[in-house]
């Protein structure tokens, strides 16, 4: 691979951004070498400067940013000193870009094919008629349905996964030497993600295009990249060929990224049949207005057990939580707490019923009132439910901060904006604990967090469960998290429970077709995973085939 000529070379690149009248570094000291036909994975947390660096490879900076040091050479052309006209000639023709949100990046006023043809026609590569024929060909390769016709639709008439493939096709239009993929599958569901990933990879291979693949998902980058570069806060941590990086990471930070998936709790045996479940959801059917969202959903959650509710966006898992908490009264069915049926509307529930069931939210940023200090955020439920005041209240708040492993003296008078993401999520947990509940709903609590931090949160939740005898309902779309924390799994699709049972059973075949599809679609950290999966699906497992069709719409 290294025998191929160098296509892109960055040396000592430093990019600054302007905020509040001063310039600060976004990335610095970046060296990067990319050979023809090679795919480089760029990974890091949000804010690590991945996108900025990807755009710099096109000689482009966003408004309020500037490249202040270093050189960027593309095929011998210095992109920093080259006149704008020359850079413009390269963009779209020799270096193309695929954005994270295709829905926002396609112009709503024009049809897909018009936007496709624009690049080759404007750069004088093809005539309009040629470009149209070519578009259909590329749409076919991207495995878009109705390749001959789909281009004549407007962006809002096409689904997200298809738009992302159409955008990749558009990037391919001039057969560029280099494509920048900026988190192209982040906004998609796992089952849709597979199709986009495989389409992108095939196209890149067929045309021997070099690529920079930007993502925060290790397993995805493992499928796509020949080499991986890890970024942290605008600086390079390390770079190595994919297999080497996965098997023997050198730096502590990289190791921590890999180590994450090691946490697994000891699975609790199923609760005895005679035990009254803490929460039972019985035959719940619910609708938003006239749109039905839940059909006959039933499951139980027992003391000291964690039930993971799994499904893709729109499957009804969060709606189920809204029914349990009483925010959305069901049109049929009921929710019982320790055997007693709860009023359907939270406004009709007693203070004690409200106290017993608490909730932890996905986005800690929006879950904590930004104008309240930690003292009030945690103290309010204590004061409200348990009537503590003055010194007793302060003591209890300090105790709760201890429980979530935050130093009381340092944190008690802070505002949420003065905390890190993980710390905010811990405060969210403390607020739930403050009510001294029996049951906690955890709604995607780790999905907005970096992986190492998420690991810490899962361990904390595990410990608290044992200490306080809690029952958890854990909503997630991430099967790795399910493996780590669940005792029982409920799989949901289109508002229905597709399959449920103990974790051990759920992760061993035979599965329901949809569970199979869902399980198999979650990328592994193994670079060969996608190849094997595609091979297996090509062999034609009947179940996967059928489910694949329904998921691909």
């Amino acid at each position, binding site marked *: 691979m290294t025998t191929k000529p160098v296509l892109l070379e960055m040396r000592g690149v430093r990019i600054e951004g302007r905020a509040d009248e001063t310039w600060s570094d976004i990335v610095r000291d970046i060296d990067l070498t990319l050979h023809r036909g090679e795919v480089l994975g760029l990974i890091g947390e949000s804010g690590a400067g991945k996108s900025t660096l990807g755009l710099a490879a096109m000689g482009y900076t966003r408004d309020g940013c500037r490249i202040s040091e270093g050189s960027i050479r593309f095929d011998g052309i210095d992109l920093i000193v080259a006149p704008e006209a020359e850079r413009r000639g390269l963009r779209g023709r020799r270096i193309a870009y695929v954005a994270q949100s295709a829905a926002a990046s396609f112009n709503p006023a024009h049809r897909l094919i018009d936007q496709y043809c624009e690049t080759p026609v404007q750069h004088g590569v093809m005539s309009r008629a040629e470009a149209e024929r070519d578009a259909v060909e590329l749409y076919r390769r991207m495995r878009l349905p109705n390749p001959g016709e789909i281009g004549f639709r407007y962006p809002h008439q096409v689904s997200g996964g298809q738009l992302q493939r159409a955008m990749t096709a558009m990037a391919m239009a001039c057969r560029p030497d280099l494509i920048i993929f900026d988190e192209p599958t982040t906004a998609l569901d796992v089952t849709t993600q597979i199709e986009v990933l495989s389409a992108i990879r095939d196209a890149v291979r067929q045309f021997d295009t070099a690529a920079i693949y930007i993502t925060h998902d290790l397993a995805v980058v493992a499928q796509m990249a020949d080499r991986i570069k890890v970024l942290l806060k605008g600086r390079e941590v390390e770079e190595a060929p994919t297999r080497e990086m996965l098997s023997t990471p050198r730096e502590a930070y990289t190791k921590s990224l890999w180590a994450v998936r090691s946490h697994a709790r000891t699975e609790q045996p199923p609760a005895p049949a005679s035990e009254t479940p803490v929460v039972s959801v019985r035959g719940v059917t619910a609708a938003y207005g006239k749109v039905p969202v839940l059909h006959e959903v039933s499951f139980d959650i027992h003391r000291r057990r964690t039930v993971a509710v799994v499904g893709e966006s729109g499957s009804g898992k969060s709606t189920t939580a809204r029914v349990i908490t*009483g925010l959305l009264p069901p049109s049929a069915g009921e929710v019982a707490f320790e055997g007693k049926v709860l009023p359907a509307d939270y406004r009709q529930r007693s203070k004690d019923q409200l106290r017993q069931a608490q909730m932890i939210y996905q986005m800690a940023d929006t*879950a904590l*009132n930004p*104008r309240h200090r930690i003292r009030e955020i945690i103290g309010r439920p204590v004061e*409200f439910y348990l009537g503590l005041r003055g010194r007793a209240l302060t003591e209890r708040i300090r105790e709760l901060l201890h429980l979530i492993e935050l130093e009381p003296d340092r944190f008690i008078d802070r505002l949420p904006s003065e905390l890190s993401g993980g710390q905010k999520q811990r405060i969210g947990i403390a*607020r739930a604990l403050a009510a001294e509940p029996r049951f906690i709903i955890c709604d995607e609590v780790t999905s907005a967090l970096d992986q190492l931090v998420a690991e810490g949160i899962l361990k904390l939740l595990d410990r608290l469960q044992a200490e306080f005898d809690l029952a958890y309902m854990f909503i997630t779309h991430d099967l790795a998290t399910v493996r780590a924390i669940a005792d029982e799994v409920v799989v949901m699709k289109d508002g229905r429970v597709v399959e449920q049972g103990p974790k051990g059973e759920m992760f061993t075949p035979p599965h329901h077709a949809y569970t199979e599809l869902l399980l198999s679609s979650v990328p592994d950290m193994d670079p060969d995973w996608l190849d094997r999966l595609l091979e297996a699906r090509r062999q034609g497992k009947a179940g996967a085939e059928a489910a694949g069709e329904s998921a691909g719409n």
Partner: protein
Amino acid sequence: MAFLSGAMWLAAILAGSAALAWAFRAALVALLPATAARVMRTAPLTASFGLVVILLYVVAAVFADLIAPFPERAVVGAEYLPWEGAHILGTDNLGRDMFSRLIYGARNTVGIAVATTALAFLLGSVLGLLAATVGGWLDQGLSRLVDVLMAIPALIFALLLLTIFGTSVVTLILVIAVIDATRVFRLARAVAQGIVVMDYIEAAKLRGERLPRLILREILPNAMAPLVAEFGLRFCFVFLSISALSFLGLGIQPPTADWGSMVRENATLITFGDVTPLLPAGAIALLTVAVNFVVDWMLHRASGLKE
């Protein structure tokens, strides 16, 4: 030539106000505690100019009795005296001291505008926050009502209501406040709707918090920044509306010293090339400019901090 001298005057005024603003900012940076000083240091000159002007107006309004050399309503000389001697800005159409009336105007005109804005805010923001938080029929009802009221142009609506209820200061305040409250309602509701969907509000609802606490403790603190900025903008609007009505002879009634009416009373002088009637009009313009400069800076800061 009037045009050229005007341009020179304009340049001199601009340079003078820039210097004033610069000095004021430097003084504030030196005098204020560290955190406030840091905020002031990045303030643009326009904003510090606005602050200076607002401060001057407040001083004029509060100490009007001490500053003004003559009483507000007394006839102290001949009509339309020139800018000489004891009457530094001359006298008006009835022979009252122009300078004194300008100073008292700060108290009357600005005072009434502030009172009106405060009332409009109280009404509009309480209802707006309530509508967004409670939702349902209350929200629907209030919103439709406001839609209809806003479909009538504000000045026209004010004219209609003033015809019916007569032109006293109290009706003026009430009429303008009610009309403006519809605009405040719109904004307060929109801001609160953005906050109500936040998870921390859901958490507070599920905790079982009552409505007053929900609004006052959970929502209001987060809505303050846009509401304060809106207060500035609404003040400008109210102030201009009241001045316009007074100018039309339908607002604050004589013999109260009021800038809008003062322009009207002395307008004839303009055609004789006398600049005096422009002074009260300029006083109105200057304050609105100042408030707008400060609000613009606040909005800019708020949007900058969000990113």
